[in-house]
C-alpha cells in the first residue's frame, strides 16, 4: 500500500473543505475520488473505509443527513435554535 490511511484521511478532509457549501459529498464520492487518483492497486475500498473512520473519529468532519447521508464540516445548522 503506497498511501497511508492517515494521508487518505487528510486528502479527504481537503476535498470536503473545498466543496463545502457548494456540493455535499457522500462517503462513496470520497472513495471514488481516492481510487481514481491512486488506482485500485494502491488504494482499495477498504483503505478508504479505514480512512473515513479516521477522518470521522478525529472530529474534523461530521456526518449530516439531508434526505441522504453526507460528510461535511462541523457547523451550526439552520434548524437549531439560537
Amino acid at each position, binding site marked *: 500500500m503506497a498511501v497511508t490511511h492517515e494521508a487518505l484521511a487528510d486528502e479527504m478532509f481537503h476535498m470536503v473543505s473545498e466543496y463545502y457549501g457548494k456540493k455535499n459529498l457522500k462517503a462513496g464520492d470520497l472513495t471514488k475520488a481516492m481510487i481514481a487518483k491512486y488506482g485500485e492497486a494502491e488504494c482499495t475500498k477498504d483503505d478508504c473505509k479505514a480512512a473515513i473512520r479516521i477522518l470521522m473519529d478525529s472530529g474534523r468532519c461530521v456526518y449530516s443527513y439531508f434526505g441522504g447521508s453526507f460528510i461535511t464540516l462541523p457547523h451550526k445548522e439552520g434548524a437549531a*435554535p439560537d
Partner: protein
Amino acid sequence: MADQKRDTKLLDELEKGPWPSFVKEIKNASKTSPVCDDLLGQLELSYEEKKGHWKHGGIVGVMGYGGGVIGRYSDVPEQFPQVAHFHTMRVNQPSGWFYTSGSLRTLCDIWERHGSGLTNMHGSTGDIVFLGTKTDELEPCFKELGEAGFDLGGSGSCMRTPSACAGMARCEWACYDTLKMCNDVTHQYQDELHRPPFPYKFKFKFSGCPNDCVASIARSDMSVIGTWKDEIQQDDAEVAAYAAAGMDIQNDVCANCPSKCMKWDGKKLSIDNHECVRCMHCINVMPKALRPGKERGATILIGAKAPIVQGALLASVLVPFVPADELMDTLKELVSRVWEFWDEYGKNRERIGELIQRVGMSNFLDAIGLDPIPQMVTAPRDNPYIFFKGEE
C-alpha cells in the same frame, strides 16, 4: 414538578376510552421529567392549530457515527424551552425483541438520567426508540448504553437495524434460525450500520415462514423468508381430530388452497406436494395436524420499499431456495455483490429496488453474477422491445 400547571384540554380528551393512552404516558413521565411538560404544551398547541411544530436537525450524533440519532428542534422554542432540542436515539434491539426485566430496567434508568423518559417500544424499523433529549446528553447516554452492552441502530444512508420474527424461539413454523441470522448480520455489518456508506438506506428483515410476521416482503431491501422444499408434515390422526371437532376441512382448508393441491374424502386429507406453493394457509388453520416439511431453508428476495421516491415496491425473488445451513454464507456473498453494484451505480436516495427498475433486472443479474430463472417473474415479457446484446 408534579403539579399540573399545563392546560391540555384537547389532549385530555385522549385520556378517555378503554385503549391505553399515550397522553397518560407523557403525563406519567412528566412527574419526573420536566421536558415532558413542555412536550405536552407543544403537542396541545399542535392540536389547537392542527399542525406540527418540529424542525429536522441533520448533523447531531455521537462522535464517529453517522447513524442512530435523529435531530429534532422545536419551531417554538421560546414557548417551550425544554424541548428546544428534542433528539431521538435509536437503540439496536436484541433479535426478536426478547428481554429480561433487568435489561429493561437498565434501559429505563439510563434514559431517565439522559432524556425524557419517553420511548417507543419499538420504532418502525425495530429499534428501541429513546424519544427526546438534548445535544449535550447524546454522548453520555451513548457511553452508558455501551457500558450496559447496548449500541445504536442505523439511520440515514446506513444499513438499517435488521429485525426478525420470534422464529425458533417460539414458533414451530420457523424454517431457519431468524434470531441468529438477524444477530449475525447485525454484528457482521457494524461499520455499515453506523457509518453511512450507501446511496440510501438498506434494510434486512428475517421472517421464518411465508406468513412473514415482520413484513419483510413489503419493507426490506433484502428479504429473507423461510420456506421448505419437501412435503408438508402431516399427522392424519390430528387431521381427523380437527374434523371431529367440527372443522369443515373441505371448505376451510381445501377450498382456500391457492393451487388446489389438497383433497379431503371425509376421512383422509391428501396433498399433492408438487403443486403446493407453500402459502401456509392449511398449516395456519390446522397447526396440530400440518407442519412445514423437514428440508428447510429460505427464499431470498430483493428490493421492497415504501413510496419515496419512485413509488412503492414489493420485494421480488432473487434466489428461490437456500438450505438453512448455507443461508449465512450465501447471503453474505450476495450482499457484497449487491452493495458493490449499488455503490457503483446508485444515485443519492435511490434504493436498490429503484436502481433495479432503472437499469433492468437482467442487467442487475449480470452484474451480480446470477443466472435468470423463471421463478424470478410471474410471466415472461409481453412486449417485443428486446435489446439484443451485440455478441449474440
